[in-house]
């Protein structure tokens, strides 16, 4: 066990970690926005649109990210879509996440008590305003844990980006492994880095959760 390697390769690993975080954050942002849009599309009265959204979600959820990313990156040029690796990685991650986020949002939308929307309607509020001011905050309360969970899952999917040469953490780790054949150090290093990221995400998530639910009083219930 030669942990000085982690020091020698430190700068490269940190750079890779930076790229991982960047791709993850950008992918999540795209996934959340796209997922929200998909949820709204799925609620329209147009049947074909609803089916299209359903099909999109089922296909994306039903296939591994590795295969999607490969088909996007290497298959894309066949149909004239030529993306640079990092772009493809972020886009792929966003598309992959969007299917899951759309489902989370769908459940969240349904969980907003109908009466809250009716109250807004009966006051004459426009749909855009209702969505932004009533539904969205209500959705966050019930979906934030699931959103954070999904974001934590996506941190781990970023390792797949290495196969299309995005210079993220896994890619740098494999360089280290290939050049030194120091495999155990690599495994431990990766465990540490990814654990840190997920732990940070869930901590931030819990804070955010406390924030969006600050208006709820917590009744103390006697335990069973």
């Amino acid at each position, binding site marked *: 066990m030669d942990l000085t390697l982690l020091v020698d390769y430190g700068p490269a690993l940190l750079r890779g970690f930076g790229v991982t975080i960047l791709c993850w954050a950008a992918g999540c942002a795209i996934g959340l926005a796209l997922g929200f849009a998909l949820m709204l599309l799925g609620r329209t009265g147009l049947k074909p649109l609803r089916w299209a959204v359903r099909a999109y979600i089922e296909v994306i959820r039903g296939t591994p990210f590795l295969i999607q990313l490969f088909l996007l990156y290497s298959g894309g040029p066949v149909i004239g879509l030529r993306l640079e690796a990092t772009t493809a990685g972020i886009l792929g991650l966003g598309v992959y996440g969007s299917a899951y986020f759309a489902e989370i949002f769908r459940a969240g939308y349904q969980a907003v008590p109908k009466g809250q929307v009716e109250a807004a309607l*009966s006051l004459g509020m426009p749909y855009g*305003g209702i969505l932004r001011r009533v539904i969205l905050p209500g959705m966050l*309360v019930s979906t934030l844990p699931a959103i954070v969970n999904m974001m934590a899952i996506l941190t781990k999917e970023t390792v797949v980006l290495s196969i299309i040469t995005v210079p993220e953490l896994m890619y740098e780790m494999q360089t280290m492994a290939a050049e030194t054949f120091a495999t155990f150090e690599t495994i431990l290093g990766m465990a540490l880095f990814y654990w840190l990221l997920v732990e940070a995400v869930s901590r931030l998530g819990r804070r955010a959760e406390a924030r969006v639910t600050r*208006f709820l009083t917590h009744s103390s219930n006697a335990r069973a």
Partner: protein
Amino acid sequence: MPAMTETETKPRLDPAVPMVSVRGVGKSFGANVVLRDIDLTVNKSEVVCLIGPSGSGKSTLLRCINFLEVYDRGEIRIEGKLVGYTEAAPRRQLSNRELRDLRRNVGMVFQQFNLWPHMTALENVAEALIQVRGMDKAAAVAHARRMLDRVGLAEKADSYPARLSGGQQQRVAIARVIAMEPHLILFDEPTSALDPELVGEVLQVMRDLAADGMTMVVVTHEMGFAANVADKVAFLDRGRIAAFGPPREVFHESGEPRLKQFLQTYHERNSF
């Protein structure tokens, strides 16, 4: 998103036009016929109470009046204006924007209060002022404060709904509605979800509104309120209006057997 400043429609003061006029309205949910051929007139500044057994269609009728529920047959007019449909012959449903204009003048108070839990009492009241009436934030907040004061809740302005008792929540819901200066307010069992101790404070606010000349349609099980405050009482039974008139007549002079039985049960349970 700034709300569009829409041209203020001044209340028409022609007392000849009834505030609400319901003519031959019918409504089914699938095979379940919930309203059958309802006729009802509510004049300006009148308080009409709807009473009747559970499932008789009281909520459905009320919700048809502001088109939260689509009615199938007949017509409902508010201040002479047809609700939910175009006047032209093959009737077509109004667009969302047209519906919004209609609903601006019709307030609604729900059994479950339906406050927005992530906004304080003040924000709940100010929100629609900003979004619908296009007021700027400062003006909306000032107006909202006055409304909270009117329902006796000035000091709870910054509390979230979860921190308020049921009675206080319902009073905030009423403030939210009257802030919009509606011509008509619909109440759907506004006190049914309240602890008995808290009913009084909400009824008092409603009494004050009635005294100020507000037109109100109230679905309620509070017979005392109906007897003392209502100008007219309508008894609904299985989707029909089985009795209608001043409270004295309906409560004491009607021969309608279902109504008599309804009142009988009520008496028995509450006498001691």
